[in-house]
């Protein structure tokens, strides 16, 4: 069981060291220019191919998972969002799913009762939802904040986000709450996989690797901002060079930044091949994005194609004489 997280952990350390030492050995252009461009290409191409593949896949059955009263007789109240029969209902349901992870909110856990009866009991388990929500929103804020490195002048909305994120005004440079929440939530999601026996049993290396990678990214980023320090103007010169297609490698940036950038590039390049594709997949789950209207509208399986079929009428035509001879009932006597 241990190798399932030791190998991803070692891999992330190795990737960190490769970039850290590589940049120190004069390969700054490789880790600062070549890798980021390749990563963004790999990310976009991989993402598009994956989603196109999903778009081309058949939805043979209408399989909404319902969590409320179906549309029924007029005097029975329907749950329009949890059991939608209209596009509006489906839209609202998807909105709540994407922005508030509603299905995760309903998460339950099974455990044996602690008293003598030892009965299995199911209880509401909210912490995965809390952790996931904290993680995703903190990551979103961190991602948006990084637009200060890709725009000059920096748009007001990004500055406002930074001001809001740094509202506690602790230390100098000021503490950003999103960084703390991101690191804490990632550690929680990791601890859950490691210490909850049931989750550990179903966790694979591909579950641990993104967590360690994101932890590495957060750790290097936090270190650069609060502890080891970097020349931010120099770094922005470099990132602006990347997005305006005139890449430069300024002096005095330091290996830690290249390690951070390399881990981010790995995350981007790895993204389309990983479980992180739930970013695109959440929009395409047939259990969520289909309306429960199968009794009102016929859903045709696209797999149904023209096959030569042998109906009962044909069968009877074929064997009528023999059937009458054997005394079997037939539809047509002649």
């Amino acid at each position: 069981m241990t190798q399932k997280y030791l190998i991803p952990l070692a891999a992330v350390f190795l990737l960190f060291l490769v970039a850290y030492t590589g940049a120190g050995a004069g390969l700054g252009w490789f880790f600062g220019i070549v890798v980021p461009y390749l990563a963004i290409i790999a990310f976009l191409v991989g993402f598009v191919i994956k989603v196109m593949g999903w778009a081309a896949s058949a939805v043979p059955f209408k399989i909404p998972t319902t969590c409320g009263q179906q549309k029924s007789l007029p005097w029975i109240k329907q749950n329009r969002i949890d059991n939608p029969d209209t596009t509006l209902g489906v839209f609202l349901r998807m909105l709540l799913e994407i922005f508030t992870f509603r299905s995760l909110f309903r998460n339950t856990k099974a455990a044996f009762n602690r008293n003598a009866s030892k009965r299995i009991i199911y209880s509401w388990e909210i912490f995965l939802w809390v952790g996931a929500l904290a993680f995703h929103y903190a990551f979103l804020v961190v991602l948006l904040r990084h637009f200060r490195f890709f725009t000059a002048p920096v748009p007001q909305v990004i500055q406002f986000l930074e001001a809001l994120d740094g509202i506690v005004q602790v230390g100098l440079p000021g503490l950003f709450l999103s960084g703390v929440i991101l690191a804490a939530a990632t550690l929680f999601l990791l601890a859950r996989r490691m210490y909850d026996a049931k989750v550990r049993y179903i966790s694979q290396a591909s579950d641990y690797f993104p967590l360690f990678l994101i932890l590495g990214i957060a750790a290097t980023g936090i270190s650069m901002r609060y502890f080891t320090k970097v020349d931010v103007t120099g770094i922005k010169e470099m990132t602006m060079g990347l997005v305006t297609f005139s890449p430069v490698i300024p002096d005095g940036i330091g290996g830690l930044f290249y390690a951070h950038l390399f881990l981010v590039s790995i995350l981007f390049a790895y993204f389309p091949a990983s479980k992180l594709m739930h970013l695109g997949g959440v929009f395409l789950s047939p259990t969520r994005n289909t309306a429960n209207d199968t009794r009102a509208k016929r859903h045709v399986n696209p797999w149904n194609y023209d096959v030569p079929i042998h109906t009962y009428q044909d069968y009877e035509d074929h064997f009528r004489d023999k059937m009458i001879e054997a005394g079997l009932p037939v539809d047509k006597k002649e």
Partner: protein
Amino acid sequence: MTKNMIMGGLAVFVLAVLSPFWFNMVTTTQAAPEPELLGPAKEARKCVLDKYDMRANHMSLLDEWRDAVVRDADRIYVAANGKSFNMSLSTGENSCLGCHADKAKFCDSCHTYTSVDPYCWECHTNPKEIE
């Protein structure tokens, strides 16, 4: 989900991912500033720390200075290069702004460029503004 909806969503996503690239094409992009050494700093050529160290660490240094001055009344900083400095942001000839004459060109150019909004100036004033 119809195929058109999926393709539309995918196009929006690709555009969003590429936003740093096209945003800089449709707007005018400000070039990276070069902090200008004006006033006494031009001749002195000796700051409290080395150039890149200073670029990365000046905010922590100022934070430490503030605590040293306010809590311990310790006002003299002896730098690694042997020179001593008055731990002050804006008062006197031997302070940060006493040497680096132009706040707008020295401090603000980089801070604006990197969207940093230090709250130094909520208490301190730029000595040039008083005159």
